[in-house]
């Protein structure tokens, strides 16, 4: 215990705190830009950390990760263009609120839910990193296959009106993710001789195209209506609509708690990612509320709370497998490995023995980052809320420019912009014909891990009876099958009821 004081001293050193503050601010800003997410923000910042002490470097990067995760809710709510895929449900429930003049309320709830999810997950990380890592290791390829199949079905069933269309979109996403060199032997698949796609289509341009660019195309077609709406977005002027009331807290408490648990759980399992967390949490709240499609039509404060709390809870929890066994649970964690090694530190089993002070310092810095996030977010929102007062005619070209910039930086130059445009057009038609573009993206993102874990399973399980040794995988597989059946039946009933009601 006596060695604890110097740790506190170094963690609370003004220099260290300043770097955390800078990281959170930078992250929040970048996160608020459409299409630029935590992966981009952290990767771009790595070179800056060369000249910092290990603690300041890691605290800075963690600050960026936390800030950008929360910041992506801002553009999701105000512009209906999520800063990154995991904030998509926030846009679904939050943008209608903004259109109803409750932008500030939605932003605040999003921020509070983010900070709570973040803090909860950080505390879980601190308390149980080592113990939980042992279990995470037991989640092998077989279990992961089951979990991914279940997630896919669950998201397909919830993100559109039709389960079948959702599954079609998801499977199309998986098909697109097959482009590139096949993982085991390196044979090219669907590459048509293009070297640029050997490592698969770049994720960021695909995501920006599907999410932001297609949205801009749709909005350009409705410019006049949006101009009218922009006036609405200025806020209703009623204080109730600007603040989070006690009633809102009561409605959202359950969603936040569930979001914390789901996000933390998803973060600890390697390879699922923040999108799975926020969608699962959002879907669960949507189901529990019994409001159905009403959620996206009139907006739902508890939907924002559910998505944001889970989204932010994923980040600290994904450090559990990183710190304890050296396996990253998320993109951020993978980037942090690079930062650790630059500083000559090896994440893994010896981390708690050899660099105990550093880890304690990182823990303290992470909690400090949570608090800074609250501060920056709360005061920054007034600035960001001004975005909505700008005419759409000004916002759209800027967003399209930023889209191009993001695609250029993250997609290997002009090729990335080409990819973005193609997927912008696909996304435009997907939105017009109600094929869930979100399910497409999830399929695209988890496609490679799904293929890999399925192929590993086929190699590892040589006899069907061996599946009995994997009860977790069996349970998730059964849930996936049940989910398809149940949701299809429900939707058919709804459809029949609709037909009957029509004269």
């Amino acid at each position: 215990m006596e060695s604890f004081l110097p740790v506190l001293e170094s963690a609370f050193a003004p220099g260290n705190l300043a770097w955390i503050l800078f990281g959170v601010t930078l992250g929040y800003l970048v996160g608020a830009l459409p299409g630029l997410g935590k992966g981009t923000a952290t990767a771009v910042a790595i070179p800056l950390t060369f000249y910092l002490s290990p603690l300041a470097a890691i605290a800075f990067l963690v600050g960026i990760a936390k800030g950008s995760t929360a910041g992506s809710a801002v553009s999701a709510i105000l512009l209906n263009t999520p800063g990154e895929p995991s904030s998509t449900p926030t846009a679904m429930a939050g943008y209608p609120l903004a259109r109803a003049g409750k932008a500030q309320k939605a932003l605040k709830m999003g921020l509070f839910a983010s900070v709570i999810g973040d803090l909860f997950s950080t505390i879980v990380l601190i308390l149980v990193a080592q113990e939980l890592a042992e279990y995470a290791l037991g989640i092998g390829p077989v279990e992961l296959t089951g979990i991914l199949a279940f997630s896919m079905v669950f998201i397909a069933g919830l993100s559109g009106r039709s389960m079948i269309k959702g599954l079609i979109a998801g499977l199309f996403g998986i098909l697109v993710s097959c482009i590139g060199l096949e993982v085991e032997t390196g044979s090219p698949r669907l590459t048509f001789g293009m070297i640029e796609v050997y490592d698969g289509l770049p994720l960021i341009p695909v995501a920006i195209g599907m999410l932001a660019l297609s949205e801009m195309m749709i909005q350009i077609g409705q410019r006049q209506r949006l101009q009218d709406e922009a006036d609405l977005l200025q806020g209703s002027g009623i204080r109730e609509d600007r603040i989070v009331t006690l009633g809102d807290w009561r409605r959202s408490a359950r969603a936040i708690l569930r979001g914390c648990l789901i996000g933390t759980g998803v973060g600890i399992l390697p390879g699922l990612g923040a999108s799975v967390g926020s969608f699962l949490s959002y879907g669960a709240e949507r189901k529990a509320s019994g409001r159905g499609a009403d959620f996206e039509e009139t907006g739902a404060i508890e939907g924002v709370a559910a998505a944001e709390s889970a989204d932010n809870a994923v980040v600290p929890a994904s450090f559990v497998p990183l710190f304890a066994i050296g396996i990253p649970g998320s993109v951020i964690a993978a980037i942090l490995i690079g930062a650790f090694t630059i500083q000559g530190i090896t994440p893994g089993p010896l981390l708690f023995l050899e660099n105990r002070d550093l880890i304690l310092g990182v823990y303290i810095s992470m909690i400090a980052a949570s608090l800074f996030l609250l501060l920056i977010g709360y005061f920054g929102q007034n600035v960001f809320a001004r975005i909505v007062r700008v005419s759409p005619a000004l916002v759209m070209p800027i967003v399209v420019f930023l889209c191009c910039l993001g695609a250029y930086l993250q997609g290997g130059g002009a090729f990335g912009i080409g990819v973005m445009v193609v997927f912008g057009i696909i996304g435009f038609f997907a939105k017009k014909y109600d094929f869930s573009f979100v399910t497409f993206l999830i399929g695209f993102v988890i496609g490679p891990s799904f293929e890999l874990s399925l192929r590993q399973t086929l190699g590892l399980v040589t006899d069907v009876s061996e599946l009995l040794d994997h009860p977790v995988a069996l349970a998730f597989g059964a849930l996936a099958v049940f989910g398809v059946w149940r949701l299809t039946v429900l939707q058919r009933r709804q459809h029949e009821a609709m037909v009957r009601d029509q004269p």
Partner: protein
Amino acid sequence: MRALSKGIFAALFALCAALPASATDWPTGPVTMLIGYKAGGGTDTKGRVLAKILTRELGQQVNVINRAGGGQAVALEGFKNEEPNGDMFFFGAVSGITLNPQINSALQFRADDYVYAGGLTEFQVTMVAPADAPFDDMAGFVAYAKEKGKIKYASLSPGAKIVMQAIARQSGLEVDYIPTKGGRGMVQLVLSGQVDFAYSGGIHARYPGKFKTIAAVSTKRLGNYPDTETLIEAGYEGVAIDAPTVVAFPKGIDPAIVAKMEAALKVASTDPDMMKISKSINMPIVYQTAAEASQLVEESAAAITIMLDTIGYKAS
């Protein structure tokens, strides 16, 4: 428009070529280091430290760009067409240069499309097993595999699969190939007890007490594992992949630029930062002159040809 801009480029190029820039002036502007892996991996980590040292040694900013894909193939394919003016150089493992064109017939580049300015470190390419495996060398492994009937092998790259196929063919083993992505996927499969045997680029050294190093895959014994036999010593003739990291320029580069880079690499090889990072990522410093590196690339490419012939590999 296109023809016009091409014309302008050609004119500018002719102008530049006409001005006899003294090679000792190089570099006169920022230089780009091309890395064929994503940011955060072993090559990238090392490359960024090297870039810092080269910035100091060359007196110009050295920037890193990552162009990942196909085991460095994407980066190398584009790099072949870069102007040989010293503005961009490649830093990465030789295996990407020697193995890729031989297993993927779609690729245009060949090892002799580049000029090598020297080598700096080497990946500790090894065959590994879980620490509790009941064998310590290749002979023990083969006996164990035969007794077990069929073993599970974590295959983290096309090269890793080819090496195991060569071993299996020669010793008559039955193998289930479990594909996995990168070193960390391999570590996860081994630590959770799902596979019996694996190929490692050296990452296993970060998990002390969890792995046994069974054999070196290189042609000569590895710096960090002087007591571990190579596959060739264990009787697997021609089964070897060398993965030292080298610095390369496109063909046609001014020899004076190569010489200047060679000298800067020699300084980098004794730099304290470089020594520290090499230790922490298990890639010992093995400095090689430009001539030594070129010879090694040639030998390594020839060794891979022989190995592919042995297993009857057909390029896709």
